[in-house]
């Protein structure tokens, strides 16, 4: 039976010659991780299971990123619970304030998940690492607890959608526009339970940050995982980041897919998802005059150095519009430092932006940029559900860093092209 790329990785980790869609399997995990919201529940379940020690302290990772630096006493208690567990279990990778980053930016950067791995994380955007050619997927806290205790997880083998990309992205169009375009096309449940596999010359033309953004939002189409074919871009990235041996898996030529989509990247336009679903997409040309109150540039979706670079190109030497708050959040300490060295932080501050330490804060309406009733935000984050960033009557418009930066300057949803011409 020919297999997709995801199926091949799963089969290898289940110790099976081959697997087929729908089969229930138990897989060995290379990485299990959680954050300050999901880990406390997992730790409680772990103890309830009667386990004392995690199976492999070297492949369990806890990252404090959602509500840190602690936004309130309850958040502080949750981080304390994680910290105590990490110390007691002698976990090799525990990331606290000062060392942490937003988990899905930090994990590839630190080489904690590498090409060919199977990884689970108690956070839905764990599907990000498919950009590296790994199988990774989000799970709940009980799966995380079971994973910590046994080093394993159960999976229903997914079928897949194949995306054959051709051409190359035009200027000011990024991986974010591509994934929003795809979600607009197939819907928020268009890939439910399935893998999204990206291949073709267009896929190979995408930078690693763009691939990470695309895979990050696979969950927004309901997918189990998103994954890119391994190529020179992957290998170059892993040469710099991987601290373990990588394993390269390739889909069989005759693998079966539920559907095949061809997308010409050169035809894509900057794309914006209107409230209250990521599938409500419009190209920038269809947006009309939408006045805004806030811009957020950051998150696990778009907080990478390339995203900061895209934003800086627009914001440098310009000013954020009156009555707009612009919040910029580099995703990791390392990215923050690189932004500082590149002069971006000065450019952002001179433009009238606030630059924050890494946090998931505003993306999920935690803190650091909550919206009032009736307010609108253009955000590079990943969800625009009702009440996601604050008041139930507030609105989130999802866009790329370039579009968000341009919108900050003009005070309405706008394209980078309009600002830069």
């Amino acid at each position, binding site marked *: 039976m020919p297999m997709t790329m995801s199926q091949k990785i799963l089969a290898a980790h289940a110790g099976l010659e081959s697997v087929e869609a729908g089969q*229930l399997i138990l897989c060995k995990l290379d990485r299990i991780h959680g954050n300050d919201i*999901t880990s406390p*529940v997992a730790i*409680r379940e772990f103890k309830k299971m009667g386990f004392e020690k995690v199976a492999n302290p070297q492949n369990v990772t806890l990252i404090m990123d959602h509500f840190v630096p602690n936004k309130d006493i309850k958040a502080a208690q949750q981080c304390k619970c994680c910290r105590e567990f990490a110390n007691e279990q002698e976990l090799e990778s525990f990331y606290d304030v000062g060392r942490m980053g937003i988990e899905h930016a930090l994990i590839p950067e630190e080489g904690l998940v590498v090409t060919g791995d199977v990884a689970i994380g108690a956070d839905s955007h764990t599907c990000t690492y498919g950009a590296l050619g790994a199988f990774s997927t989000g799970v709940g806290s009980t799966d995380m607890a*079971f994973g910590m205790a046994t080093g394993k997880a159960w999976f229903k083998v997914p079928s897949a959608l194949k995306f054959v990309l051709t051409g190359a992205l035009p200027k000011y169009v990024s991986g974010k526009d591509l994934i929003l375009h795809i979600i607009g096309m197939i819907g928020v*449940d268009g890939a*439910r339970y399935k893998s999204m596999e990206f291949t073709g010359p267009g896929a190979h033309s995408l930078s690693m940050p763009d691939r990470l953004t695309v895979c990050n939002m696979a969950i927004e189409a309901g997918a189990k995982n998103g994954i890119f074919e391994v190529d020179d871009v992957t290998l170059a990235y892993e040469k710099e980041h991987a601290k373990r041996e990588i394993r390269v898996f390739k889909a069989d030529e005759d693998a079966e897919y539920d559907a095949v989509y061809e997308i010409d990247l050169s035809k894509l336009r900057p794309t914006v998802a209107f409230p209250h*679903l990521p599938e409500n997409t419009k190209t920038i040309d269809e947006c009309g005059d939408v006045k805004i109150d806030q811009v957020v540039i950051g998150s696990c979706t778009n907080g990478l150095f390339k995203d900061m670079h895209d934003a800086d190109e627009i914001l440098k030497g310009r000013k954020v519009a009156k009555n707009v708050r612009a919040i910029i959040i580099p995703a990791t300490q390392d990215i923050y430092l690189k932004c500082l060295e590149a002069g971006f932080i000065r450019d952002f501050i001179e433009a009238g932006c606030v630059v924050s330490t890494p946090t998931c804060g505003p993306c999920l309406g935690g803190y650091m940029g909550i919206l009032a009733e009736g307010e609108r935000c253009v955000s590079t984050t990943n*969800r625009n559900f*009702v009440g996601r960033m604050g008041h139930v009557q507030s609105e989130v418009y999802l866009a790329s860093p370039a579009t968000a930066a341009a919108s900050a300057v003009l005070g309405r949803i706008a394209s980078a092209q309009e600002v830069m011409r």
Partner: protein
Amino acid sequence: MKCKGKAVKYGDNVDTDVIIPARYLNTSDPRELAAHCMEDIDKSFHSKIAEGDIMVGGENFGCGSSREHAPIAIKASGISLVIAKSFARIFYRNAINIGLAIVECSEAAQAIEEGHEVSADLDEGVITDLTTGKSFKTEPFPAFIQNIISAGGLVNAAKSGIIA
């Protein structure tokens, strides 16, 4: 598994942010989470449900975040079963793992109206709308998942060595 209760009904794409808004995720206490369950789309949720009632949803129920707080909040609110046209995958496995009964049944989710009396026998694979008298067939879970459910969730399944 058998249950019976009044139906409370929602539409498509009920996401985990409305099931339990992230501003309450600074706790994992089931009772505290239950107190805020569904409040962003239905302020009257708690006043209209009683212990054992049944939640009905449309397509892609539970989409969004992986927060297990979502099925925990629903379960701790007293809901005995969620019937939906389809479930988002992480919510689906979280519900199984924590022992919240769920079942996919398009016809039942379409036909049952808010306030109807509903009974379900998941072993037999039958949902009945007692208000209209209509019955609906459901697909049984695969044995592997049935074992987790029967054990009372993944924790107990792991404890008793059903899976390891």
